[in-house]
């Protein structure tokens, strides 16, 4: 899992640096909740969860603004963000307006507060809360995998064609079928997602 986690973080980082517009959303979706959970466990005395969320936001915003400061050869992206968020949280706790400084349970801190394997598992699962609703609507495994590629911003038609089982067809035909499937799936999901909103009215 650790190797996969390293690789996943590196890939997302590469995409961010390369200017992939979806990378920031995917990084936030994958890392934000585990980071907040980790900090909350690390600082059980901090009752104001807004402080924790703000520290994680700060860490992510700094990373988005200056991705070059992260060196994937030294740390995993998760650890880098966790260190940054922890440091931001400690700084905000030290500010005078905060009544009580709550020290972390462990000065060695980062490992051992919560089982790191759990956190890594959570990051690896990558189940975006923002896509949960959509994924729940996708009962067909082909559509689910197809939408997974769309959500990740996959550009290669061949990848979509593989999922649809039409890799043996000419490239132009693959492109047409993929485009059509994409449009239909989008429309269908949009209609299904609209329903609960309509029924509330």
């Amino acid at each position, binding site marked *: 899992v650790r190797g996969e986690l390293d690789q996943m973080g590196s890939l997302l980082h590469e995409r961010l640096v390369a200017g992939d*517009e979806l990378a920031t959303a995917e990084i*936030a979706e994958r890392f934000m909740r585990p980071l907040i959970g980790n900090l909350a466990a690390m600082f059980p005395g901090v009752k104001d969860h807004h402080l924790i969320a703000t520290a994680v936001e700060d860490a992510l915003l700094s990373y988005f603004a200056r991705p070059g400061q992260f060196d994937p050869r030294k740390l995993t992206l998760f650890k880098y963000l966790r260190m940054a968020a922890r440091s931001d949280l400690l700084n905000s706790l030290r500010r005078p307006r905060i009544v009580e400084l709550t020290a972390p349970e462990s000065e060695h801190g980062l490992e051992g507060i919560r089982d790191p394997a759990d956190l890594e598992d959570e990051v690896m699962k990558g189940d975006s809360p923002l896509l949960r609703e959509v994924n729940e609507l996708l009962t067909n495994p082909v559509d689910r995998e197809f939408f997974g590629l769309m959500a990740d911003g996959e550009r290669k038609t061949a990848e979509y064609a593989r999922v649809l089982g039409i890799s043996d067809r000419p490239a132009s035909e693959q492109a047409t079928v993929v485009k059509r499937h994409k449009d239909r799936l989008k429309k269908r999901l949009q209609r299904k997602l*609209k329903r609960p909103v309509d029924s509330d009215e």
Partner: protein
Amino acid sequence: MSDPTGIEALAGLAGRLENNREFMAYVLAAYRKQEGLSEQELAAALGVTPALLVRLALCRRPAADSPDFTDRLRRIADATLIDEAQLANVVRQVEVLERLSGLPGIQQGPRHPLDGHPLDGLMAAARDRSPAEGEEPAPHEDKKGTDD
């Protein structure tokens, strides 16, 4: 935790990106302000859930002068289930506002934190102005006619 799904936290992050011109959060905020829409109303106008709107807000804004702008916008539209043409309309409308206010185009590079939304003044002026006869409606206004 008080936010078991994590959506609230992601929405908080998206909210902090509303003043950063390099993010779609900025575009959506500018568009909402100009059109006088709530987040829910914008989500409904674009035909997506509020969660998908947060996803869109967290995406970087494609540079308008990028040679593959359409491709980039299409990827974002696909990843958020938004109609590509509608999304393009929203982005273009905000670009027009920016040009009118003299803001330079979006390019790759370091970003600067801004106090308040950079288009606040111009949008207030635009809201004060009554629509002239023959003007095209805003993209969300004619949406019902384009739905299948």
